[in-house]
């Protein structure tokens, strides 16, 4: 039992717990706060995966900027607590059953996986996950998806303005 495994256990359990709280909390503010903690613990898992840059961006962008937007929206819409859940209907039971089925399939599948993770060599440890390495691969090898993402951002911006414009 090494320290990485202990840390992974802590982060994983806490991620799942706070993610569960996001969907069960009845007050939107509590949901949003639980989401912040999900993001933080997920960032911890990224660090364990040797992806420091992604972890930092996760905290800066998601736990920071995006959450502020969430809270603004909740404040502006003046949301109250969600009403009590209704009775279980056939659709809800079916949805729950298929979700549970998918969870079971995934649990069995992933449980059968080889438990030996790939290890980085010394060279890999020096460069993997650094900002320089990520930057280099984004602008060279991954040029096509990178350009497509820039198109995606433009489309999303134009689309958001079109949907939010005064009524036509």
């Amino acid at each position: 039992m090494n320290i990485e495994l202990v840390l992974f256990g802590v982060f994983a359990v806490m991620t799942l717990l706070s993610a569960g709280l996001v969907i069960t909390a009845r007050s939107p503010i509590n949901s949003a706060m639980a989401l912040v903690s999900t993001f933080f613990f997920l960032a911890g898992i990224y660090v364990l995966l040797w992806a420091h840059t992604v972890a930092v961006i996760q905290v800066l962008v998601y736990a920071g900027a995006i959450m502020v937007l969430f809270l603004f929206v909740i404040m502006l819409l003046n949301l109250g607590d969600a009403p009590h859940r209704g009775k279980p209907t056939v659709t809800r039971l079916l949805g729950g059953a298929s979700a549970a089925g998918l969870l079971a399939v995934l649990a069995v599948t992933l449980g059968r996986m080889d438990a030996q993770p790939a290890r980085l060599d010394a060279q890999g440890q020096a460069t993997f996950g650094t900002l320089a390495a990520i930057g280099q691969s984004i602008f060279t090898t991954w040029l096509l998806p990178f350009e497509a993402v820039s198109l995606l951002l433009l489309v999303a911006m134009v689309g958001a303005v079109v949907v939010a414009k005064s009524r036509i």
Partner: protein
Amino acid sequence: MNLPNITLADFLPMLPAIIMVVAASVLLLSEVFLSATASRGYQAVLTVVAAAASGAVAVGLMFEPPQEVFLGFGVLDPFSSFLTLVVSVGLALAALSAVGFLRRRGAERGEFYALMLFASAGMSLLAMSSEFITIFVNIEVLSIATYALTAYLRRGTRPSEAGFKYFILGAFSSAVLLYGTALLYGATGTTKLNDMAGPLQQALATSPALVYVGAVLIAAGFAFKVAAVPFHMWTPDVYEGAPTPVTALMSAGVKAAAFASLVRVFVTVGKGMDPKLPLMLFATLALLTMVAGNLMAIPQRNVKRMLAYSSIAHAGYLLLGVAALFVAAPGEHFRLLSASSLSGGTPLDVARSDALRGILYYLLAYTFSATGAFAMVSALERREDEEKGTAWDLERFAGLAQRRPGWAFAMAAFMLSLGGIPPTVGFMSKLLIFQAAIDVGLVGLTVVAVLSSAAGAYYYLRVVVYMFMHPIPEGAQPLERNWGTEAALVIATVAVVLLGILPGHVTDWLAQAGTLFGQ
């Protein structure tokens, strides 16, 4: 530093998409200088010109040898170029039918055409993407553009409901697709389709379950996008609520691009896998989609909604063609889905390339017929009736043959084509797919397909009956003519009839277009 070698030649296959993006940017920027009441007639013209230019470039690219571009993140092959051509056709017809539609509502804006162009650029890029991240990003480009277009007109509740529903379910299906991709990446260690063959063999030997679960999740994600039963729930509401020209673009372009990517992904991922799995998967989807789509369309009196269900049914026929790609050896038996060779004469690989050709021809045929039919629907509807829900009622078509014989003739051609009745392109394309399916031995499934398309003829011909045999209803409003709509109708009708009578040239040409990279 080791820099990969990306040259200008790598950008050549992107040229159709680049043309569309440049045209969209011109539209967005020119809108800044226009007052609210300025004339915007040029916008549709510019869109159609851009679509025509992209289509022409795509035709030129079709004769390039298949090759990898951008280090294997994309491929240039006749298949992707043909899909770009289909998308350009759909874009041009949808933009033409939007002219009158938007003008009647005072809603002509550059952003509308720009988003259409962006969506089409995403479709063209999706058709040539051969790497999972690129595929995902391009699916999002075309999806987000169509979400925004769906909610473009926001008077009343329908468009908002449609936009919201499409957005939530679309985001969900994208997430399912992405999760499947992640599992497949976990199993193989690569996201490039062309590098996947080797690692896939290893992964199937060590952890097959991971590959299968990943593949099924990816299939489910695509099934949402092409509106296959049981992932079709969003389709009728979204198709009905969206502005009609947008529905035309969705039914033609989005579907074509999603099918292209589906075929490309599964032809690669299916290699080395037990071929029964993709066969069973797509045969089941095809069966459910054909039968349910046609049955649900029969009771519809709302023509726009009927066309939405009909587009589900057409996805079913296309899935039959996809299933035919995965028959490894005749004589596999799953009762109804059994593959047993009937003709015996055609070798399996020839039959499979016939199936691919059939899918491509079907996509072209459906694009002409469906966008034409939606253009007709948009010409007849009036905004005042939308909230009452009667804007698309069959009654609108009553007596059309006496009021506008040309329109009625065009609509009759589209309905016959969608129903698969000769001498239209819809008949030829169904023939190609069904023939390929029989040749590989999917006899039971093809019989179901023929029977369900016969059931489909009922609701298509009902529209024709209303147009030609019912009297003009009392107090019918005058019909407005518009050059855009009429141009779209003429182009689509000529194509539907010509491709139905003289399919030879195109199918010969398609024999080449059915070349997938690495096949």
